[in-house]
């Protein structure tokens, strides 16, 4: 049960990653691999600042800004120098690898015994429900602390999801969605689409860096490798969300990405529990996304074939 709570908590933290990927991949159809660099960048910034004694909330906020800078760099390279989206992302991601090593000073920064957002949460939790209390959830006894941590994460994700939903309903946010939908049209309506792409990628990578920052604090270390495979991971979450919720309204799509992230993390936890080799994790994630991407087209085709054979019969 503790394992389950832990998985849901991580899934919630990674929902920020899913929201970031949702912005780049679904709003802009921009396969932005900067994500892999900015995820680690967020973790690196927060870990180094916390080790240096900076307030964890401020250290988390700085990760968000760091991610925004990374995303803006990708957007600038793409719009200003007409370099293709994937390559723009690869350039920034590669550059960030060195930057991250510089920020951290070494390839792994432990945060044990340091004050993080989560030690704050735990303190609040202990103040509310005592040191070693356990709570009964569906017949399982779990540490109240774990439950509180989960609730805090849930609160943060709901807050960010609502913030994003609100943003996309403002004048500028609607113009951003239109940029991804029909750039010719929105340019004719006076929007600088290049600026929008830069801003959108900044926002996306801000969210992703925030996910990296919170994951580092949750697991108690930042590692220079932790961003590898994160783009596909985020994509898997978004796709699961879309598969679960057929309603394409904005609020539902955002909720879907969050739910997808938690579910995907749970699936992975269960698979690992059943004895899946952790080394196979990325392989299976990639295969999963591949299948999710080709399946709809494949199904349409078989449907068509069925209809055809029906006619002939």
């Amino acid at each position, binding site marked *: 049960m503790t394992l389950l709570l832990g998985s849901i908590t991580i899934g919630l933290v990674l929902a920020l990653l899913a929201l970031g990927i949702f912005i780049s991949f679904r709003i802009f159809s921009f396969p932005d691999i900067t994500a892999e660099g900015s995820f680690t960048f967020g973790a690196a910034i927060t870990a180094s600042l916390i080790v240096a004694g900076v307030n964890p909330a401020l250290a988390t906020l700085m990760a968000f800004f760091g991610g925004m800078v990374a995303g803006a760099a990708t957007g600038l390279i793409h719009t200003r120098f007409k370099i293709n989206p994937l390559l723009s992302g690869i350039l920034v991601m590669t550059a960030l690898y060195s930057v991250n090593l510089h920020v951290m000073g070494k390839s792994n920064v432990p945060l044990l015994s340091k004050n993080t957002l989560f030690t704050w949460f735990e303190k609040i939790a202990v103040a509310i429900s005592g040191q070693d209390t356990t709570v009964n959830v569906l017949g399982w006894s779990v540490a109240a602390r774990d439950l509180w941590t989960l609730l805090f994460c849930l609160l943060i994700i709901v807050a960010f999801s609502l913030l994003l939903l609100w*943003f996309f*309903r*403002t*004048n*500028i*946010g*609607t*113009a951003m*969605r*239109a940029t991804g*939908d*029909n750039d*010719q*049209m*929105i*340019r*004719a*309506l*006076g*929007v*600088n*689409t290049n600026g929008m792409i830069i801003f959108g990628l900044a926002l996306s990578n801000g969210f992703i860096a925030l996910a990296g920052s919170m994951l580092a604090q949750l697991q108690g270390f930042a590692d220079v490798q932790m961003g590898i495979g994160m783009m596909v991971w985020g994509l898997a979450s978004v796709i699961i969300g879309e598969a679960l919720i057929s309603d*394409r309204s904005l609020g539902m799509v955002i909720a879907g990405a969050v739910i997808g992230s938690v579910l995907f993390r749970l699936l992975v936890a269960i698979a690992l529990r059943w004895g899946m080799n952790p080394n196979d994790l990325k392989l299976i994630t990639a295969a999963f996304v591949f299948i999710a991407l080709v399946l709809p087209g494949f199904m349409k085709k078989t449907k068509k074939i069925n209809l055809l054979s029906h006619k002939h019969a």
Partner: protein
Amino acid sequence: MLEITHLNKTFNPGTINEVRALQDVNLKIDPGSFVCVLGTNGSGKSTLLNAVAGTFLTDSGRITLNGRDITRWPEHRRASAIGRVFQNPFSGTAPSMSIAENLALAARRGRKRGLSWMLKPSLVNDLKKRVKDLNMGLEDRIDSAIGKLSGGQRQALTLLMSSWLKPDLLLLDEHTAALDPKTAGKVIELTERIVTEGKLTTMMVTHSMQQAVNLGDRIIMMHQGSIRYDFGGEEKKRLKVPDLLALFDELRRKDQIDNGVADLLIANYV
């Protein structure tokens, strides 16, 4: 109002695909004038409209609109003064967004877009009213995706969008060409209404001689990247479809003679 002087645009210069799409175009349009632009395929009509709208920058020449030199302005900056409807119904609207959202986007054409709520109740009321005025029964569907509508409905809405804030100049590029005759007729009717009511300065590209004769107060005819004929005032009123067809034939004949002369020269000197 709009003044174009010595405008030139060559696509793919210095390659075998070089196209001199605009060659020394000069044009002056008065405020409130409705100009029909005619011309054969590839004569540079769309290129002229795109040059004015800023889709690309021109090679030489000057474009001024309302006394401001906009020659080097990027497209999104010019949009504050220019409303557009494209030939392709898919070009003028954001398909996955709702009718209301599309119109609301147009209600801020060329203006600052900040963090205030987009679909304010007052705006929604206003846009419901204006959609109702279209008489297409769309006022009950303003929350559904615009991509689900027919081409004609989308063009009507794009017209509404382009004129929501009064543009200094309205550019229509064969905006009925993709529609069936009946729908095209409706959209032309709407165009006439919007242009007359708003006293909009308009350039409309069309392949329909009938439209050109019926609408507007001026006809220009383009050929091979430049303006060959320009009729206004009483002269335009007297023009009939057969006159226009005769002019087209004349341009074509001149072409053949030009080509014939070129062949002769090549045969003799090359």
